[in-house]
């Protein structure tokens, strides 16, 4: 059991949520309640990481994070550290790879709020910000929690993007799923099995939680 790899995985999952949830909620709300030119394009771009092979996504991210790219150079200049093969780089890549897992359930959550309920809130004197806090957010809450669970679980299991962008630096970018791969390569079936079991339990727990939340929403709309 590599505790360091588990710790990197868990930090990566938590960091991804912290970075991705606020803009994910804003974008999901925007896509759910507004119509604007180019909306379909935005939705397609959000979904791209779903269909792109992780290594392809990782390749493009690695190229744009490299020290010769404007983004990588700016990061290097500001923090004196390369973005590629570092935890911050891995976090940025994870956030992008998880975009659809976060935005789509949140968008569905906001879309499920009946438009007339939102209008009734306006007619009750709630300004747009209070409508969002008191009507939209509580009603879309299960969608937001679902998004968080899916993104967290997906981050723990991500392999291709992590390997491409992060490399395999212990304590920095070596996650549990990469450690499993290494153990299998080294014919350490016992170690790989232990770590695989941890990920399996986490994945099953995550899905069970999503299902329970889904049922709660159904009951409320009864």
């Amino acid at each position: 059991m590599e505790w360091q790899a588990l710790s990197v995985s868990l930090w990566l999952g938590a960091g991804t949520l912290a970075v991705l949830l606020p803009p994910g909620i804003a974008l999901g709300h925007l896509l759910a309640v507004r119509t604007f030119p180019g909306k379909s394009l935005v939705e397609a771009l959000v979904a791209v990481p779903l269909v792109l092979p992780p290594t392809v996504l990782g390749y493009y991210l690695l190229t744009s994070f490299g020290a010769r790219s404007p983004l990588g150079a700016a990061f290097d200049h500001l923090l004196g550290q390369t973005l590629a093969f570092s935890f911050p780089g891995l976090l940025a890549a994870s956030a992008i790879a998880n975009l659809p897992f976060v935005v789509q359930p949140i968008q569905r959550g906001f879309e499920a709020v009946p438009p007339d309920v939102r209008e009734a809130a306006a007619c009750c004197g709630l300004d747009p910000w209070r409508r969002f806090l008191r009507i939209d957010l509580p009603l879309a809450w299960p969608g937001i929690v679902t998004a968080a669970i899916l993104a967290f679980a997906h981050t723990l299991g991500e392999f291709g993007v992590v390997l491409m962008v992060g490399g395999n630096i212990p304590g920095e970018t070596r996650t549990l799923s990469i450690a499993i791969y290494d153990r299998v390569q080294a014919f350490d079936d016992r170690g790989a099995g232990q770590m695989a079991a941890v990920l399996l339990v986490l994945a099953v727990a995550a899905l069970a939680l999503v299902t329970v939340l889904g049922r709660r929403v159904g009951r409320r709309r009864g």
Partner: protein
Amino acid sequence: MAERRLTVALEQDGPIPLAVAFDCAPGAVLGIFGPSGSGKTTILRSIAGLYAPRTASIAIGGEVWVDTASGRFVPPHRRPVGMVFQEYALFPHMTALGNVMTAIGVRPRGERRERAEHLLERVHLAGRRHRRPAELSGGERQRVALARALAREPAVLLLDEPFSAVDRAVRRRLQDEIDDLRRSFDVPLVLVTHDFDDIIRLASHLLVLEHGRAVASGPLGDLTSRPDSGWLGEAVGPGAVLEAVVARVDRAGGLADLAFEGGTLVSGDTGLSKGMPVRVRVPARDVVLAGREPSNVSLHNVLAATVVALAPEPVRGHVIVQLAVGRERLLAEVTRDAIARLHIEPGRDLFALVKSVSLEVLPLRTRLT
């Protein structure tokens, strides 16, 4: 402070064509009547600020909410409007009390709670205040929506098909409740409906809408007794609506006397009680005209009448005869043959015969104050 009268003028070619201008005084109930798709709901949504027609001016008292000429548009949350949505649109994650409290605005929590409880009592829902909308019946949800609409102390009340989702018995009770509330909250009330029963029960004024255009508007009594009332549509048909008071009830004989401005009408409705104010609709097709006073007939209503005007009835090719009975007006639908045989022309004195069971009597809630 000037009278808080609602004035509305809307116009646009599409996507939903609109061309209406009307006003509504505090205490008055404007019924907007028309088939679905005629733009009724769009008018309400425009008043609430949920829809912006291309050309519009909406004001209440001296306060301008919309004026497209000057570019003024007050957003919905800054318009003190009480709106009851067709499907009620309650907040599903809040209790009845929470729904009402949310609409009360910025006040100390204790005060908001007290006021919300008072409003729920007003609509007879005090015992249900901790239930969520999903745990309430259709009629109860409607009453929560009503209490929530009143919570803001609205300057105007807007009701969108408020009875479409409840059965007839509940509908009656809700109509009474709205009538009660209307009397105590002295604001203009605009009611949208496709059921003429709602209009007769609640409206003081009527606006008939067809493809976004007002085909008739005015006080209910005047409008329903106009001879050219083809705009009422085939479903309702022409028929004058009169105000009356129950003067006598004869349960044994199965009759009730209704005193109106032109005399007395006898109704076969015995579910009434003495002193009750009612509205009576006299369907024009059920009014028979006679040159002489008939005798030995089963019907009870023989009213001396004078012909005021004639107008063609477009659907069946008949003629609508407008009659003066005392100070009231009635309508009768007869064939062209009858017009010729009886020499019916303006100024002619006749007798209008109506079966007691043909009268549609709608009790208005009495308030002993």
